Each structure stands twice: as structure tokens, then as C-alpha cells.
């Protein structure tokens, strides 16, 4: 138990900053919340009209845009909530939600 709790990423009490303080600004980026994703948005560049609604509504800033144009998703932080797909205008329909296991190179289910 002890050896498991103490590892390179998790220092012991003597090495931790006191008071639960976190001294490294912006280190939340190290936490890849994309791990939580069960459904993955898949973007169709052909259908996309670059209205940026998905970019605007994404609660995690995981829709990537450059120069006013969508360029894809940041799957490190996309939690798969599906808001982007919901907000994409029905006539456009450029974002589809697919099961994460289907997106894997070697799908788990048959």
C-alpha cells in the first residue's frame, strides 16, 4: 500500500508544499480530462460552414479554431459531452458523436 501511494508522481508528505497549496500556475493542463470521454465528436470538414457555434459552446475549450475556421478537436480535453454536435445547425450536421470504443484502432466490440 505504502509503495503504491508513494511514487514519482506522488511525493511523500515531506516533499509536498504545505496547506494543499499548488505552486505551479496553470498545472490543470496536465490533467487530461479527455480520459473521461465515452462518446467522441467526429468533425466533417466538407459539411462544416465555420459558423463557430461549436467553438463558442464547448465548455472545455476543446474545439480548435484558427483564423476563424474550425480545424478539429483537442481530444486531450474533450469530455465527449456532445454539446458541439447539438449546437451544430441541423442543416449543416457536420459533427457526429460516435462511441469511443468504435473510434479505437482496434475496436473492443465486434
Amino acid at each position, binding site marked *: 500500500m505504502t509503495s503504491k501511494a508513494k511514487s514519482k508522481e*506522488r*511525493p511523500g*508528505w515531506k516533499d*509536498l*508544499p*504545505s*496547506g494543499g*497549496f*499548488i505552486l505551479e*500556475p496553470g498545472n490543470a493542463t496536465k490533467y487530461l480530462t479527455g480520459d473521461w470521454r465515452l462518446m467522441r465528436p467526429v468533425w466533417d470538414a466538407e459539411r462544416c460552414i465555420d459558423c463557430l457555434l461549436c467553438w463558442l459552446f464547448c465548455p472545455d475549450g476543446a474545439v480548435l479554431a484558427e483564423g476563424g475556421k474550425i480545424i478539429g478537436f483537442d481530444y486531450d480535453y474533450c469530455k465527449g459531452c456532445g454539446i458541439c454536435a447539438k449546437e451544430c445547425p441541423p442543416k449543416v450536421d457536420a459533427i457526429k458523436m460516435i462511441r469511443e470504443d468504435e473510434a479505437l484502432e482496434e475496436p473492443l466490440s465486434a
Partner: protein
Amino acid sequence: MAVAVALQKKVAMTGNEAVAQAMRQIEPDVVAAYPITPATDIVQYFSNFVANGQVKTEFVTTESEHSAMSACVGASAAGVRAMTATASNGLALMWEVLYIASGMRLPLVMTVVNRALSSPINIHCDHSDSMGARDAGWIQIYSENTQEAYDNVIQAIRIAQHPKVLLPVMVMLDGFIISHAMENLEILEDGDVKEFIGEYRPERYLLDADHPITIGALDLNDYYFEHKRQQVEGLLQARKVILEVAGDYQRVSGRSYGLFEAYRMEDAEAAIVVMSSTAGTVRTVVDAMRKEGHRIGLIKPRVFRPFPARDLAEVLRGVKAVAVMDRSESMSTAGGPLFTELRSAIYELEPRPLAADYIFGLGGRDIYPEDVCGIFQRLLAAKPGDICSDPMVTYLGVRE
């Protein structure tokens, strides 16, 4: 040593006034408070100092004690010295924030004027308020009289902010008995106090724009335990720091402080352990009974958190019988909080002294020298080898 002691003014003041004067001399950056008897005077006097321009403190009047402690936590986390004062139910209302202050390692200093907890509602002295907060991770220092209340508040600043400690400190004085009683005390010059406490330069604080940090982040089973272990380390280190600060304070004031006072314990075969104002009454009885040839002594714990278990056991080595006087009831049915700590501390002594608990003074019930004499007589009658007392817990002065 006497030559170096600073010039001091002898004054007559109530306990609350003495604490307020100490706060004026410390001049914390923020005082946030909500009034409650018998602690109200402290912040009332202090608000006068603010209004008169004698201090530059930001004085925050809050809508409750919960908010007062929260404001102090915010101020301290931001990087400044913060102080407050409360009593009884006011302290109870601060409950959850007390743990936040200690968990965040914020060096707040708070005066608690000891008063019974409701219900039944009662404004008089007992220790049920601060004893209820004994496990909140604060350092606890108890004062016998107005002089000690003044001295302890000043020393608390240095103890709290010490880098090896970084814990909030609670300084107690007995409600009405000391808070509203006028006694002589010596107060230091303002400049000497300022020099003693030094400038406050926290290593880490929220408003340090060059080194942004996160405070109050979620800390689950992967880190919480380590942070609690760190807190214990702060309390372990506090023992030495409290003594160092006391040494420095003695050089300025000429008054000596320790973790506890051992009075006439050298050859004592019986001892009473009691905190705060009642120690004065017990000391008077020790002197009187010593004149009659009884080998008795007094131990007055000053620091209850951290509990100086080993030091106390050492001074009780060879004592035949010891009585603890608890001014609060832990409701464990196995004795008050001071008793259970003390009895545990002397468990390893050989031979083991007889230990008895006396719960007294609840809700301000007065205690007289005759009561104390009675306790000593029972202790002196103990036979060698007796370790268990019957009854283990006595309710002194309660009507049957």
C-alpha cells in the same frame, strides 16, 4: 538578563483591555469580528483604536462568527496578518472554518474568552468552547491572568508565523474571572512589541502576482493524508518553537514561559494539574499547605495543543497521586479532556501514580480554596501502589 529587559509600564487593566492593547501594539493588517459576551470588549476597544487612527488595521464587522473567521482566512491567505476574538457559541459557529484555517496553514491569531456552551444558555466561564475545538489543528495556549493573556497574544504571533509551524493559534483567558477583572500587569513599549513580532513576510500568498498559486484545491485520497501528516509535523515542531519564542520574549519582558508551569514540584508526592485562572487559587493553597509540611505541588499546562505529554510525564515521575481539574466535560463518561490526555501521558511511568479527575466550575460555578484543600487531602491519603481512583471522576461542587 535583567539589564537587557525593556522598559515596561505597570498598569491596571481588565483581561479584555490587556488583549486589546496587545492587538493595538501588534497592529494586524485585518481584524474581522462579531461581538459575543464576554469577548465583546476586546474588539470594541480595538474598534476605538481604529476609529482614533492609532492603528491602520482594516476592521471588518461581519454578520456572524462564521463570516468573521472566513474573512480572517481570506485575509491571511491573501498574505497579511489577521486576528479576531470570540467566545462560546461564537467559536462553535466558526467550527468548520477553524479546520480550513489550520488545513491551509494560515497563521491567524484568535483570542477565545472561555465561556460555557449553550444549552442551557449561560454566559459564565468554563472551557467547553475551546475544548470542543481542541482537535481543529490550532495551537492552544491558556492564560492564568491578565498578564499572561497579554504576553500570550504577543507570543502567539511569532509562534503562528514561524515557517516550521505555520498554524493558527488560539489564546484563551477565563471569561469574566479574567476578562472583566482588573489586575496589575506590565506592558511593553509599542516599539518593543513591533520589534519582537517582526515584519510579516509570508513565503507564499494569493496576492503574490509574480508567483501565482492555487489555494483550497480538491485534495482526495491521493494527497489529503500527506497534508494532515504535515499538519501534525507543524504541531510537533511547535513544541520547540514555542520554547524558543518564550526565550526571546523573556529577554524582552523578563517574564518566563514554558509549555507548562511546575510549581513546587521538586519533592512533591501529590499534585494538581489545572489550567487558567484556577491555577492561582491552587497555588495559594499549595503555599498554605506546604507551610503545614505537606509535599504538594501544582502543574499548570499553558500549551494544550500540542499536548506536552512527555514533558508532563517527566515532571510527574515519582509523584504518588495526581488530580486533574477539568473545567469542561467531554461527555465521554471517562473523564474530562485534560484528564484523559494527562492520564495517557503518565501511563508509562513506573510506578504509575494514582490519577483522579475533578470536573469543576461548569457554567461559572465558583471554586474556593477549601475545595482545593479537599482534593489534596484525598491525594495525600492515597496508598502507594494505588493507581485507580474511586470514583475516577468527581463533580466538584455540584448539588446532589
